[in-house]
């Protein structure tokens, strides 16, 4: 990271400068002579950063402050800010070359003409490269599945709700809007390799959206969950290598679906039973452990471990922050570890490194739930439960990863 490297350079040079009792001024200019105070004017420069790394995480600053902060989970250090908007959605080019920010603005702040577009930023200079106008997008923010990019990085899909439910398709190579299609009764876009997309639907089914032909063909599985009684969290986990999605319901039922032209959904298992507890009920009064938060699950794909933000409570507390993170071995259908967490985080992700790091974020204090002020991010080692880094005022929104 650039700033860490600079700090090192500065302190190394300072040790030398200290011997001459002249201090840091000696090294602020490349043309300065060590041993004399430099009065050489410095040049203003602009830093650049590497392409996204597997150890980086991206935190939306929340509902009030625009921008997505990049941190390195290896160091806990801030890298830079990607210029996203409040209620915006960030997508990261799988090839690591671009950041895409889906935004909506009026020409005159809150009045004038509405504009919806994707801003394109180079991933190393973070320079603005241009906008791709689109017909609209949902205004909600804080979701991973409203703006997704195809695995080859060529196509972007942006969910729209106007309140007609539809999807916009953008060609990133040509940097232009291609077309939109209506998606009645479904949302939560998921890549569906070889087919196009998948989505969750309000009738409790999974839709397969075939984009390979001229006409968009939408088919649905049989309903397998209740969208009103025991909904599946928006925050579904997509695993390209296995061609599947892992889903979590409010009561803690873990579903796995095989993607394809005709997705198949396996029988779910209860998270609580997987932890040796009784299954949770889809009604209040019964105290149990429940998943909760805005981004309650994260999948470490290589190991097949699902991490879940859990809190003790009753049903219909699915937005509550966590007091534990449960580590679920999906193949064994077992909760293999319960990690205590502080600060009631509502947002969770996990890096895809061989030794993964958990990232949790809690909303900032003050002005009540939903004020959207930046809160503390923690980097946790799931192997030990140790807090590796704690970053104040990091953000309150989604945590995303580059891969």
């Amino acid at each position: 990271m650039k700033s860490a490297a600079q700090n090192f350079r500065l302190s190394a040079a300072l040790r030398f400068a200290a011997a001459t009792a002249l201090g840091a001024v000696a090294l602020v200019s490349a043309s300065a002579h060590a041993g004399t105070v430099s009065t050489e004017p410095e040049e203003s420069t602009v830093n650049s950063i590497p392409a996204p790394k597997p150890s980086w995480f991206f935190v939306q600053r929340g509902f009030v402050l625009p921008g997505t902060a990049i941190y390195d989970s290896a160091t806990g250090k801030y890298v830079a800010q990607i210029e996203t908007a409040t209620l915006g959605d960030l997508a990261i080019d799988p090839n690591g070359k671009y950041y895409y920010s889906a935004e909506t603005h009026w020409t005159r702040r809150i009045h004038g003409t509405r504009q919806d577009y994707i801003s394109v930023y180079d991933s190393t200079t973070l320079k603005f490269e241009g906008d791709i106008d689109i017909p609209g997008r949902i205004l909600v923010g804080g979701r991973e599945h409203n703006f997704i990019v195809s695995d080859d990085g060529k196509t972007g899909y942006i969910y729209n709700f106007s309140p007609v439910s539809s999807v916009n398709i953008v060609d990133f190579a040509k940097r232009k809007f291609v077309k939109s299609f209506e998606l009645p009764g479904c949302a939560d876009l998921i890549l569906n390799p070889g087919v196009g997309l998948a989505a969750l639907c309000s009738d409790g089914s999974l839709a397969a959206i075939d984009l390979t032909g001229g006409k968009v063909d939408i088919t649905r599985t049989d309903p397998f969950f209740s969208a009103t009684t025991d909904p599946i969290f928006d925050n579904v986990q997509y695993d390209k290598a296995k061609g599947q999605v892992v889903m979590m319901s409010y009561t803690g039922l873990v579903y796995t679906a095989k993607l394809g032209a005709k997705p198949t959904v396996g029988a779910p298992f209860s998270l609580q039973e997987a932890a040796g507890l009784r299954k949770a009920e889809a009604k209040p009064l019964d105290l149990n452990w429940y998943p909760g938060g805005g981004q309650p699950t994260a999948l470490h794909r290589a190991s097949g471990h699902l991490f879940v933000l859990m809190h003790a409570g009753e049903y219909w507390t699915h937005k509550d922050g966590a007091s534990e993170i449960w580590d679920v071995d999906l193949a064994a259908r077992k909760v293999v570890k319960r990690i205590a967490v502080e600060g009631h985080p509502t947002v969770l992700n996990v890096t895809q490194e061989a030794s993964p790091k958990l990232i949790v974020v809690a909303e900032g204090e003050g002005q009540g739930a939903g004020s959207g002020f930046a809160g503390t991010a923690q980097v946790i080692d799931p192997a030990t439960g140790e807090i590796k880094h704690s970053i104040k005022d990091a953000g309150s929104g989604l945590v995303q990863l580059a891969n």
Partner: protein
Amino acid sequence: MKLFNADGLGEKVLRRFAGGTSRRGMLARIGVALVAAPVFPLLPVSRAEAAKPDRSPESKTVFARNAQTTDDTKCDYWRYCAIDGSLCTCSGGGIHSCPPGAEPSPVSWVGTCINPDDGKAYLIAYRDCCGKSFANKCNCDGSDRETQLYTQQLNNDIIWCFGTKSMEYHCSTAVMVGAA
């Protein structure tokens, strides 16, 4: 009493929202139920049904058991069981009034809340007041029977400012629709 039937609600309202015209598939296109504002005709509410005592499990959420009916500027006011955002009652508005200069959205998400004084369930439309920047006063986040994005009319994270001049979110009201 059943859980709120989104589809049943939706059909009636949306036909009205679509202006009563025969425009193809307004309901199918939206695929969700929406609660229309008074500028559009309102739901017919069955008084007989509303009189039935509510014994359903949803009457006993943590929120419902702790709710009060006297101070609508507090998050535990009974109608706020599924609200998310700034209370308009703290921002120069009222329980069903927008603050000056804001515009009520003609459509909204809905909640089913229990009035602890009579133990009955009521349908509440959380109508956003739009066109002014975030009030950020008395922020609350109720989650009774609140669902996810694919069931939009029961999700409270969406900015519900459709059909208003500006979609900027200011605050939220909790408008009585009728007995649930």
